[in-house]
């Protein structure tokens, strides 16, 4: 059997076709075509939807809705999404960013999926034909998910409250050793009033650093006051081991990089 692509204009039909075993959804191709090229014969059929609405970016009233086919490049160059640009630019090189999609990034296994780390910190909502769900719920069940993501939605962060860091060994572009996204609200005196921190490469998919989030509350962003949060950063992590870094190394450097992100 060769690899076959079917193009649908309706999401309903595409979702139905996706139920057939061996079928995957084709977004930008950077995951599924790559798998097929590498000899993954488990994928025998691809489906896609050519609805231009999937490539739309809507920003209004502080709310953002990114169609699942929106590319990293489109996010990076959108004037109202400047806060997200560093996370979008962290994905691949220029050609990959012209192809890789918001929807696809939600399925990218570690060490990939840096943009999904940002979306997790933003508490995004993942939209499918069946309705909406919090990104955390979506990520937990993504391996068995058989429904096409159509969009993600989130509240647009103020630029100063959203921070993103990707650490690579190869400059300027390389695979993640780890990535961190943090949404922090500070009181006028600089005290952290809310914190949501997401980590990449600290499990097979993006995860929250809940203990660190909790430890940050009420702290000012000084070396001394964030120390308990850094100490808690490793709670609940199970970093991946790959040719870029071992789980041990990733765990060791996580507090260092989280500290830099918070103090920057």
């Amino acid at each position: 059997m060769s690899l076959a692509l079917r193009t649908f204009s309706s999401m309903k039909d595409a979702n139905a076709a996706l139920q057939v075993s061996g079928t995957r959804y084709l977004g930008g191709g950077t995951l599924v075509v790559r798998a097929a090229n590498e000899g993954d014969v488990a994928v025998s059929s691809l489906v896609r939807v050519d609805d231009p609405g999937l490539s739309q970016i809507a920003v209004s009233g502080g709310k953002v809705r990114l169609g699942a086919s929106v590319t990293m490049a489109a996010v990076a160059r959108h004037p109202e999404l400047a806060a997200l640009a560093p996370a979008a630019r962290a994905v691949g090189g220029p050609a990959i960013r012209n192809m890789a999609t918001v929807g696809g990034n939600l399925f990218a296994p570690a060490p990939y999926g840096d943009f999904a780390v940002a979306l997790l910190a933003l508490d995004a909502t993942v939209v499918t034909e069946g309705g909406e769900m919090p990104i955390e719920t979506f990520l937990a069940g993504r391996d068995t998910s058989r429904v096409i993501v159509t969009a993600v939605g989130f509240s647009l962060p103020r630029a100063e409250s959203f921070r993103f860091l990707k650490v690579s060994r190869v400059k300027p572009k390389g695979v993640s050793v780890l990535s961190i996204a943090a949404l922090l609200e500070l009181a006028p005196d600089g005290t952290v009033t809310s914190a949501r921190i997401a980590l990449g490469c600290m499990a097979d998919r993006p995860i929250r650093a809940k203990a660190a989030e909790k430890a940050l509350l009420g702290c000012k962003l000084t070396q001394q006051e964030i120390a308990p949060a850094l100490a808690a950063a490793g709670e609940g992590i199970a970093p991946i081991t790959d040719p870029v870094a071992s789980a041990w190394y990733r765990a060791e450097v996580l507090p260092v990089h989280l500290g830099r992100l918070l103090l920057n």
Partner: protein
Amino acid sequence: MELRKDYFADVRKDGLHEIGQARPRLDSPGHVTGKTAYFADRNFPGMLHLKMVRSPHHHARIRSIDTSEAERHPGVVKVLTAKDVPHNVYTILILIQVGPEDETVLADGKVRWKGEAVVAVLAESERAAQEAAAKVKVDYEVLPAVFDMEEALKPGAPLVNEYHGQNYYLYDSGECRKVRFGDVEAGFAGADHILEQSYQSSPIEHAPTETTGCVVAPEGNDRFTCYTNTQAMFFTLDNTSIILQMPGSKLHFVGGTVGGGFGGKVDVIVEPIAILGAKLTGRPVCFIYSREEEMQISSPRAAEKVVIKDGVMKDGRIVARKVTGYTDAGAYSRHSPYGAQKGAAHYPGPYTIPNVWIDTYCVYTNRTPSSAMRGFGVTIGDFALEVQMDKLARLIGMDPLEFRFINAYRDGDMKAHRQPTEGAALIECMQEASRAADWPVAEKYMAMSSYRKGA
């Protein structure tokens, strides 16, 4: 670029017209227009794709191979196993009498490293070949494996390669390549200080952007044209001739254009089986490594371990050096016996030492067979030697560059492996380095010369 003509001015004819001049590369116009023809740019109607079924185990006995389901898979034209290869056991360096033959083109009865080729599938499309390869059933009995050179040399270690009978290459000099010069123990006895250190390295993959591969076209007259990116054209042709038991006149190799090699494309791996496939099917065949195969299957630079023991005087003279080098060949020889031998000649470094003792071992382990890479056999040794030189200089409180001037070899010095030094330029290189790096050394070193010993 600056050409410093004051060095060796009196011993050099100075009519240089090309050196020091920027000349256009002959191949660049093809490169920038995309016209340069790499092997994979050849395409033939009806070309078959070859995919290899590889061992998932580091060391295992093959109980049975069942290719029946793969042979029935749509698009499959031929499935090859060891029995199809006319002369299945070979070794590359047999051409220069470095045996024994110790490696199989397709595994026969046993696999000795994870990734070893077992069954070749030829199909109408790459996809069909991949699907059929997944249907080949190989029944393995997993054997204990050894991955560490010193473990491999211990009594009772699993025997990696039966063609050798022991886990090291047996040179005509015995279990290792040996260099003996002067009296090393007397040298140590008279030294002011002794420093023994060990250094080791991991395998290094060349990772060329163009993966290893070839395209073979039958010419219809029992002759085959093989477009290949081998870096060793005639080694490959001659070994293919042996493996396929075909006269060389039946083999037409076209190459010379390589998309990055760095030594990684000197092994004879893809061509013989692809030509055999073309011969048995009468069809053109391409066998191109995937990126994963390039990284995991192609030979890396060998892992090495180097133990250096030096005797040094307070005045800076190294009076004795004993080196034990270990080269991890992986499961098969390929070029590693030669690499280990090169190390034996090289280990004194570019220094004149009166008492030298060197043993270099080529060791077999159940790791990916290693082979050539840019200065293999000496590069890791140079890292070890120069780190050792810095440590020695620190030990006696001497500037590390001046310490090297004192020990630098010069024309006429006898090297430990009995080659007299000729054309040395280390002194002059260090003098220029001293200036360029603004790392001053005493005037007497700046007045030294490689070819006037008295100066």
